[in-house]
């Protein structure tokens, strides 16, 4: 077993990061320009890291597969970003954000990492405002907040339902400033197909130019992976179609450990699946749970339209089961509760796999408030609804429009139908406190790493973590590593680079030469179904075992029978997709191996054998209080398990209660 050293500094919770920053080695300004750093992915983590590193003086090269760094999928994050500013005077603090995040993650994250995240959260908001990010404001000109799941304070900063877009464009603008001044060289429409390791250290990447098909070698003193999550292994998800696990998986096969791969976030409020043609699912922001109420009919198999079901026959099951948090319970809990209702026969819509998210009472409440503000005494119902809808439109208009586009229905007049969908992966590359993977010189930031969310991520915390890693953590920690390495530039024509380049080319040619009958799309859909049915919201030992054998058969089919049209020497979207699916087939298998190993339920990982009498996740702290870090041994599904014990020094883990 490889020793896992998390490098968590000693000392009190509040002093760890402060002391650690002081103890980290520094690189002097004149020497910084002698170091090259490659950043892969330009979402919140990648763009913020690239900009901050370039500002320090390092030579930064970025890669993204989109045609512009601005299009990374962070752009689609809707609801907001958490920060412990306590601008609302409602009792928030760094410690409370730390505690909520740790508890929300069902006590499967590192205390020290989560506390650091809460500490730097306040700097993120300052940074973004200074960049010109147009957050929502109150009439006094100060920043507005709203509430998100798993918290009883209002600490979420937002820009309508487009917070991710605005934060990413802020980080992209910071990149642009550094591209302009020569600190960053940006490659777009390039996909990273391997990590090059020289003498045990990450020294570069192999990229494919997606326009010409040319495979190129790029060297650096350190490589930072900010490539997001791997949820597309489930096929139907809220991820962008291009989001993949390829870079982290190829890093895994070069020696980087994958930690807790089975921890998947299934988001409770997505537009339900309607048919076989669908290519993706669309999220309806968690912010909608601020004002919307979730319900199912209290009668099984009720076929009436939502508006025909009287109040007395509606079951607001979250408010019933969790009176303290109500509709704002964490995501894993809200998702399971929706599944429970549908499985028990209370689902709605044609598929019966949906529940309602209802805005009628919010419209009524806002309408009365507005009528009061306008001095309308005894307003009639029509006036109340008209005024109320205007307020709801101002707050959530773009989300309601999106719902209308996809479903052809009007959510202002009838409740939305929603169902859980795959949204985020808490698992990822194992990193130490410095965000370094088990390959020296290879770092992972944002969703690509496993470190801060435990077994369930709270809403509005992904943006926080991506930016925390990129703006305020990595720029400190990477210097500690670089200070101990040689400054002379790394050649890109050594044996390791040439071998890696050849392996990538061989793999591409192999995919094209199979020339079978199964399309990449067919295999990807099948892969998604296996994952959803066997490793989705409810997992069992027998189901996982069956899933693993199905996955192996599918991988076999892929290797013998996949059909990839065209050549490598051109823009070839089928070839791009085939490479990603090949990696997902192995990654999916490891997810199921991990889920099978973890004989407990925690957060988003729900093993049906392990639940409380009320159907809540039942942890087994005595046996599973660890991060499972899987090490590649040369064969898919045969990874070696390394355990990093989670030591809770400051908080006593308990059964999560949101009642």
């Amino acid at each position, binding site marked *: 077993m490889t020793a896992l050293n998390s490098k968590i500094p000693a000392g009190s919770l509040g002093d760890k990061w402060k002391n650690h920053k002081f103890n980290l080695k520094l690189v002097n300004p004149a020497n910084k320009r002698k170091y090259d750093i490659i950043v892969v992915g330009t979402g919140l983590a990648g763009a913020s890291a690239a900009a901050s590193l370039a500002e320090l003086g390092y030579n930064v090269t970025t890669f993204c597969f989109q045609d512009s760094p601005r299009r990374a999928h962070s752009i689609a994050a809707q609801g907001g970003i958490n920060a412990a500013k306590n601008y609302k005077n409602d009792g928030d603090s760094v410690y409370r954000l730390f505690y909520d995040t740790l508890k929300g993650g069902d006590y499967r994250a590192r205390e020290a990492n989560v506390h650091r995240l809460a500490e730097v959260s306040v700097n993120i908001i*300052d940074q973004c405002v200074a960049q*010109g990010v147009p957050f929502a404001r109150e009439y006094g*000109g100060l920043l507005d907040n709203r509430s998100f799941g798993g918290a009883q304070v209002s600490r979420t900063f937002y820009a309508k339902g487009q917070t991710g877009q605005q934060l990413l464009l802020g980080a992209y603008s910071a990149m642009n400033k550094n591209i302009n001044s020569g600190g960053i060289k940006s490659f777009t429409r390039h996909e990273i197909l391997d990590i090059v390791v020289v003498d045990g250290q990450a020294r570069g990447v192999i990229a494919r130019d997606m326009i010409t098909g040319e495979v190129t070698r790029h060297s650096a003193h350190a490589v930072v992976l900010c490539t997001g999550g791997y949820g597309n292994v489930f096929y139907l998800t809220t991820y962008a179609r291009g989001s993949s696990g390829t870079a982290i998986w190829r890093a895994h096969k070069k020696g980087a450990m994958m930690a807790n791969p089975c921890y998947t976030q299934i988001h409770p409020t997505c537009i339900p699946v309607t048919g076989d043609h*669908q290519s993706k699912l669309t999220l309806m922001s968690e912010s909608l749970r601020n004002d919307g109420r979730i319900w199912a009919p209290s009668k099984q198999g009720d076929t009436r339209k939502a508006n025909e079901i009287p109040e007395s026959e509606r079951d607001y099951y979250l408010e019933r089961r969790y009176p303290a948090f109500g509709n704002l319970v964490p995501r894993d809990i809200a998702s399971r509760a929706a599944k429970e209702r549908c499985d028990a026969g209370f689902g709605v819509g044609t598929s019966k796999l949906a529940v309602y998210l209802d805005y009628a009472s919010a419209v009524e409440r806002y309408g009365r408030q507005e009528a009061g503000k306008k001095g309308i005494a005894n307003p009639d119902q029509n006036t109340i609804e008209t005024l109320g809808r205007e307020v709801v439109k101002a707050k959530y208009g773009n989300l309601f429009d999106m719902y209308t586009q996809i479903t052809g229905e009007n959510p202002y007049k009838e409740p939305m139908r929603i169902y859980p969908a795959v949204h985020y992966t808490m698992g990822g590359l194992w990193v130490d406190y410095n965000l370094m993977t088990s390959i020296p010189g290879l770092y992972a930031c944002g969703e690509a790493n496993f470190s801060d969310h435990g077994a369930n991520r709270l809403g509005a915390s992904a943006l926080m973590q991506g930016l925390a890693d990129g703006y305020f953590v990595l720029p400190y920690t990477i210097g500690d590593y670089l200070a101990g390495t040689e400054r002379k530039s790394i050649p890109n024509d050594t044996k390791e680079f040439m071998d890696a380049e050849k392996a990538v080319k061989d793999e591409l040619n192999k995919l094209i030469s199979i020339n079978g009958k199964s399309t990449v799309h067919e295999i990807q859909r099948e892969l998604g179904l296996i994952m959803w049915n066997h490793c989705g919201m409810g997992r069992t030992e027998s189901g996982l075992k069956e899933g693993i054998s199905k996955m192996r058969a599918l991988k076999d089919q892929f290797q013998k029978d996949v059909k990839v049209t065209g050549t490598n020497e051109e823009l070839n979207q089928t070839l791009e997709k085939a490479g990603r699916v090949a990696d997902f087939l192995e990654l999916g298998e490891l997810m199921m191996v991990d889920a099978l190993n973890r004989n407990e339920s925690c957060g988003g990982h729900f093993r049906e054998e392990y639940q409380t009498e009320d159907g809540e996740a039942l942890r087994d702290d005595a046996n599973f209080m660890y991060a499972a870090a899987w090490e590649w041994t040369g064969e898919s599904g045969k990874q070696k398990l390394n355990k990093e014990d989670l030591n809770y020094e400051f908080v006593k883990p308990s059964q999560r209660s949101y009642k």
Partner: protein
Amino acid sequence: MSERHINIKLKVWRQKNKSDKGNMEEYALSGVSTDMSFLEMMDTLNEKLTKEDKQPVAFDHDCREGICGMCSMYINGQPHGPLKGVTTCQLHMRTFNDGDTIVVEPWRSAAFPVLKDLIVDRTAFDRIQHAGGFISINTGAAPDANAIPVPKENADEAFLAAQCIGCGACVAACKNSSAMLFTAAKVSQYALLPQGQAERYRRVEAMVAQMDKEGFGACTNTGACSAECPKEISISHIARMNRDYLGAKSTSNAI
């Protein structure tokens, strides 16, 4: 709304690469669900082509929820198709009727060369942003977020400009291939905020200079850009940019 199935004919621009001349090809698709998005319909076409051993149609797409700005396409001569305020990926087939012929083409603009089929090169947009689309603040140097109050009206107006997804529909819609709306959206966002004041005039000069260098045309106030913008960004931002540009040019000859 209930699902229907329709038969359609597609006329799609096919072009192997940048130097290929390109031509329109016709395809028939039957039994298309009206619940499909336009891109899912294109997926179906591609699956069919693949099975027939033909090259699928290359098109840009990513988030498929109308925010990344990756998807493009002229649909029946309109950028992002017939609906107002909707990107191609959010356009659904219920907008079309049985028997329709749908013409699909890439953006047409000298500054956006076609790379393959429906994919164009929009890196000119990035270069305009590199020239000045930022506020020069380094990480760690920011004052408290609430130190400078911003009137809600200004913050909201800045947000409306900042919603630009950089898809290029404005350029595609413009008879002059002008990138004024795209450039103005960023100039205007920062001009409305106190944080953007220090570099306000320098920024507008630099961004407009780069815009001209990329070969985009001039603005003749037709308003097609704003009418076709999937985020409905107002042409008033162009007016604000023009005012700033005039002011900048009358006092500076920096660029």
